[in-house]
């Protein structure tokens, strides 16, 4: 399989007056053409940071190392001008908060058209005509009227659709969606997700879906990468990972999710403790202070990501497939 996006040993760190913050540590992942990868983790696990680094959108004080190749072209550390030509054209991103992610003073149609004008040198007139088609594709009702409206005249779901239309304008090969539904109502969430699914299929576009919601991942993703404390702890196909999680963290995450088919009396199991702050360095496995299966070795030696029985997992004592059944 040829990877559309290959992230290799990516690390992001900040040197602050209060010490070094390690936001992302040695993250590698690959996304194939037309594939959807779910990137899962708690708040502060480094999901957004990793992909903002790929986009070159981190704050100037971020120190990024490692590599990220889009169709074989290195993105990190390249000439900003060359990166800008890819950004918004071949590689697009949508964000968590549609309420504040659109420029308040520019008409919706022009915000979509601008991408085309800048990247494809389309005339404004043609770009606006295309913007109308894009709005229709992302199922915005009354699209012609929306073109001349300002973002504050649109609902949150509509605005996220506009964000998607902006991202899709230049037909990207890779779309990064950073918690695209977190700020939306549940019913709107489902609409946006099925829209993303359809657009992916129609366009053969790869999708990186950053989320803390395993339910979202289950519905959309082919592969999943689980991040904990800025590191990949487990990766694999969505089927295997949801059925037979190999890392105790993944298993705990699944147990902590409400299930529609569980009996009402069954309590939800929370993961004890707090995820480590990226400022502190936990020795050994970063998850060991919260892990029910931890052994002395877990506190001393950091497990590396390795392949065991069809799963990529960073754990000294992965849950074996035989008793990986969630009971």
């Amino acid at each position: 399989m040829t990877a559309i996006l290959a992230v290799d040993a990516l690390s992001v760190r900040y040197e602050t007056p209060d010490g070094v913050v390690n936001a992302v540590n040695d993250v590698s992942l690959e996304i194939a053409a037309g594939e959807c990868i779910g990137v899962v983790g708690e708040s502060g696990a480094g999901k957004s940071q990793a992909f903002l680094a790929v986009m070159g959108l981190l704050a100037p004080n971020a120190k990024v190392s490692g590599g990220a190749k889009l169709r074989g072209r290195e993105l990190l550390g390249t000439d900003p001008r060359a990166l800008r030509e890819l950004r918004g054209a071949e590689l697009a991103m949508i964000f968590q908060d549609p309420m504040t992610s659109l420029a308040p003073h520019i008409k919706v149609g022009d915000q979509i058209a601008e991408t085309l004008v800048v990247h494809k040198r389309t005339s404004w007139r043609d770009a606006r005509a295309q913007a109308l088609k894009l709005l229709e594709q992302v199922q915005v009702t009354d699209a012609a009227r929306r073109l001349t409206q300002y973002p504050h005249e649109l609902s949150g779901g509509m605005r996220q659709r506009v964000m998607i239309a902006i991202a899709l304008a230049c037909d990207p090969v890779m779309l990064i969606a950073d918690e695209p539904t977190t700020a939306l109502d549940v019913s709107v969430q489902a609409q946006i997700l099925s829209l993303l699914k359809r657009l992916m299929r129609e366009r053969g576009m790869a999708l990186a879906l950053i989320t803390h919601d395993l339910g979202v991942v289950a519905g959309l993703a082919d592969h999943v990468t689980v991040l904990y404390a800025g590191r990949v702890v487990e990766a694999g196909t969505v089927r295997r990972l949801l059925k037979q999680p190999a890392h105790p963290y993944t298993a705990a995450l699944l147990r902590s999710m409400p299930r529609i088919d569980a009996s009402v009396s069954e309590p939800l199991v929370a993961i004890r403790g707090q995820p480590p702050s990226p400022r502190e360095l936990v020795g050994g496995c970063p998850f060991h202070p919260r892990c029910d299966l931890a052994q002395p070795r877990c506190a001393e030696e950091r497990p590396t990501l390795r392949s065991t029985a069809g799963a990529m997992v960073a754990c000294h004592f992965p849950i074996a497939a035989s008793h990986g059944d969630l009971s």
Partner: protein
Amino acid sequence: MLRYALQRISGVIPTLFVIITASFFVIRLAPGGPFDEEQTLPPEIKANLEAAYGLDQPLLVQYGRYMRGLLAGDFGPSFKFKDFSVTELIAQGLPISLTIGLAAVFVAVLIGVPLGALAALRRNSASDYGIMGFAVLGIALPSFVIGPLFALIFGLYLGVLPVAGYETGQPKYLILPVVTLALPVIAYIARLTRGSLLEVLRSNFVRTARAKGLSPLRVLFRHALRPALLPVVSYLGPATAFVVTGSLVIESVFGLPGTGRYLVQGAINRDYTLVMGMIVVYGAITLLSNLIADLLYGWLDPRVRYD
């Protein structure tokens, strides 16, 4: 936008009416009158004078008479500058005050906004510290210090500009007053622009603009600058009014025959009509500059127009 504009404009006339009415009665509350001087006039002469100016009438009658005159564009006679009507006095001085005031605001925006933007873009660099240091000085130093200092340097030592005075059609007399007047406004605008641009540059929609692959210049000018100018515009309304009407110090330092002195002299002399005339004019200027700021605000931020 049209409805928003009409709404704003329709608010101006009633406000001006309230200002005029309130001022008319408040001035009369101050003890003394225009004809009370160190050497007391014989009561008959004083009574005659008051009758001649209508001051013997009940206050409400005087008010009605004044308002009628105002509607016809007549500010009445000055009590102290005996050969002049208030209209004539204002017509002489106002062009000068307006010119230096508006020029100062214009210069201040033209210099202050780019300086502030530069400081924001080069945050924590030498140029940022330099600009902000200058801004603190500009705000802290009063114009009666800077004015004479400029007159000393450019007028006496360098001899390139006149120290003071005014001759019609000679703009070189206005340069120092305009610069002195503009300096604190430049400083304030630079600080406002810097702060608000820094905030906007961190906002989500600027991140979206960058994610679209736009060039830094396009991100700055098309996406960030307009929202960042909102605080500057809301400051500009009162600031313009203040600079145009509050140039009294500058006018005395540089010996300019503007209107600033009339307000002070008029108030001390109880020159009711002159003070009222100045209040009407300054009130109108204040309302007008705030109106323009409001309209600009609506243009900058579409969300404002619909409230």
